[in-house]
């Protein structure tokens, strides 16, 4: 058993986390907190796609826009075409992927700064375009998006049902992302993020792999968008705007630690989703104060923990190892030094 655990440490760790998380609704009954947990899962999934693109050296500011494409596709398909959620979900994912393929094909040729500007423009364009299309409800959005049809005895009428649906979707997303990361595709992405020239010289088609990560990332955002639309039953274009949504998505990733592809977004999204709500309650719904407090906190984390909250774990692990070796007597690294090395050296991949 012990050998098994140490051999499959990561999958076992995630399984324990998953079970613990799945048990939360057993003692948290408040729909308000369940709602926050559902949004945490959606936000974490979106942040994971942001990190995925970041790994290949692409900083995408239109994550929320593709999230919106998925949400709108699903809303239109279910409200106007009367399709079931279970058909809308895969269909809207494919539609988002198709959009990503066409758009990515044009904008990824110029990676770097141009790409950032292009995605910013796209993010703003999405809101304006959707807001001016009457058929999509304009800025009023689409309401009365139906809940998923029941499967057997499972009826989706409470937030807890959506919590479990969201959890299943998040697990699928994590599996898809880790499948890519653990394969040659993920290694090619990392190679591009580290050094595009060297990646080319080992035979990586930089454009194709960047496009792959863009399409996969956007498709996942679309999948989450479909879920979000049916969960909220109401969407409007401003939800998918650059500010605050995409900015927050980045902050989730950076706060948790962009070097941690799965756990970083989970921790970051969890912390910030709850923190934003708490601050909003404390400052009594004055949104600008919320952003100020959250912004100040993010600056603190970026300055003192540039590799995210999770790098604290590495720091404590090093501290623990140092203490076990008998403190400073054997001339091992001092805690201050380890803190520096744990915090100060972001991976080159993130310096895109």
């Amino acid at each position: 058993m012990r050998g098994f655990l140490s051999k499959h440490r990561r999958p076992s760790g995630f399984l324990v986390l998953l079970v613990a998380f799945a048990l939360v609704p057993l003692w948290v009954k408040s729909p308000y907190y369940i709602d926050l947990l559902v949004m945490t899962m959606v936000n974490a999934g979106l942040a994971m796609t942001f990190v995925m693109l970041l790994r290949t050296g692409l900083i995408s500011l239109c994550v929320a826009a593709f999230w919106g494409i998925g949400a709108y596709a699903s809303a239109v398909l279910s409200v106007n075409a009367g399709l079931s959620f279970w058909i809308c979900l895969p269909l809207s994912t494919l539609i988002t992927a198709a959009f990503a393929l066409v758009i990515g094909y044009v904008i990824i040729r110029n990676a770097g700064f141009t790409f950032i500007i292009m995605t910013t423009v796209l993010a703003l364009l999405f809101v304006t375009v959707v807001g001016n299309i009457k058929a999509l409800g304009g800025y009023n959005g689409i309401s009365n998006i139906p809940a998923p049809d029941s499967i057997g005895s499972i009826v989706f009428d409470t937030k807890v049902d959506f919590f479990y649906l969201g959890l299943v979707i998040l697990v699928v997303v994590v599996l898809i992302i880790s499948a890519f990361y653990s394969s040659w595709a993920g290694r090619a992405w990392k190679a591009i993020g580290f050094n595009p020239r060297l990646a080319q010289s080992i035979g990586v088609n930089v454009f194709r792999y960047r496009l792959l990560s863009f399409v996969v990332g956007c498709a996942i955002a679309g999948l989450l968008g479909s879920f979000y639309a049916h969960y909220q039953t109401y969407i409007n274009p401003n939800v998918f705007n650059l500010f605050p949504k995409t900015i927050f998505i980045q902050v989730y990733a950076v706060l948790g630690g962009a070097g941690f592809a799965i756990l970083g977004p989970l921790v970051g999204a969890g912390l910030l989703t709850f923190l934003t709500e708490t601050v909003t309650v404390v400052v009594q719904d004055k949104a600008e104060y919320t952003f100020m407090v959250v912004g100040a906190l993010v600056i603190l984390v970026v300055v003192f923990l540039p590799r995210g909250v999770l790098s604290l774990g590495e720091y404590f692990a090093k501290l623990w190892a140092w203490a076990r070796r008998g403190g400073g007597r054997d001339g091992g690294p001092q805690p201050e030094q380890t803190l520096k090395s744990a915090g100060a050296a972001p991976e080159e991949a993130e310096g895109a």
Partner: protein
Amino acid sequence: MTTPAGSSNGPLLRVEDVSKHFGGLVAVNHLTFEVEEGEILGIIGPNGAGKSTILGVISGFYPATAGKVFFEGQDITNLKSHGIVQLGIGRQFQASTLFMSLSVLDNVYYGFHLGYKTPVWNRLLRFPSALREERELRARGAEILDQMGLGAVKNEITKNLPHGHQRILGVCIALATDPKLLLLDEPMTGMNQTEIATMLELVRGIRESGITIVMIEHNMSAVMSLCDRIVVLDHGQEIAEGLPWEIRENDQVIEAYLGKDEFLLDD
């Protein structure tokens, strides 16, 4: 890749009347030379002679302004760098271009990019075939490192390696792409005498394993002792070509290098 018929007795690489302009700057000017299978060809010349540029053109990093490049009889002039690697031209970079935050073994392991066959899902579901492929490639990576004398440091983080080892690792990554032709861009720059001696041995070893080598190098005694044939460039043009001793006695070459202490041979 299959070799086209009739190319078996032709040169492995043929650079035909290649020019490369950067804006108004002519870096390479109507250059023609051939590389025979199994040889070590040295390209020398003063700074700015176009040596690195021609390697960039061969490996597809710079598109040629004019002329053609043939590899095994196939026109590769317009191929992208990743396509050219696939055909069997590996390259090492002038600066220490490595995956600095990965371990030494992982650097070579990443270099096997073209060697992976397993689909994405098989790896996630931990299919035995996928895991076996990874084990095999890791073992091959360790083998390459052992052959190149880096076996002892294979678990080190790359940025902690001394300069000489980083240079060798660059060659190891290129070897992982399973090249027929290896392009080395100043592999001995910044190395001390011992490191240079090691590198000479390693390059000879690579040639003996059947890989043809084109090398740019400033260290003259190294070039003279290592290369079978030498092409001398100046201002983007070939000014001489021949055996090392012919180059050493060539008036034009001496003139091109006049006053440059790098050509003051130590013999």
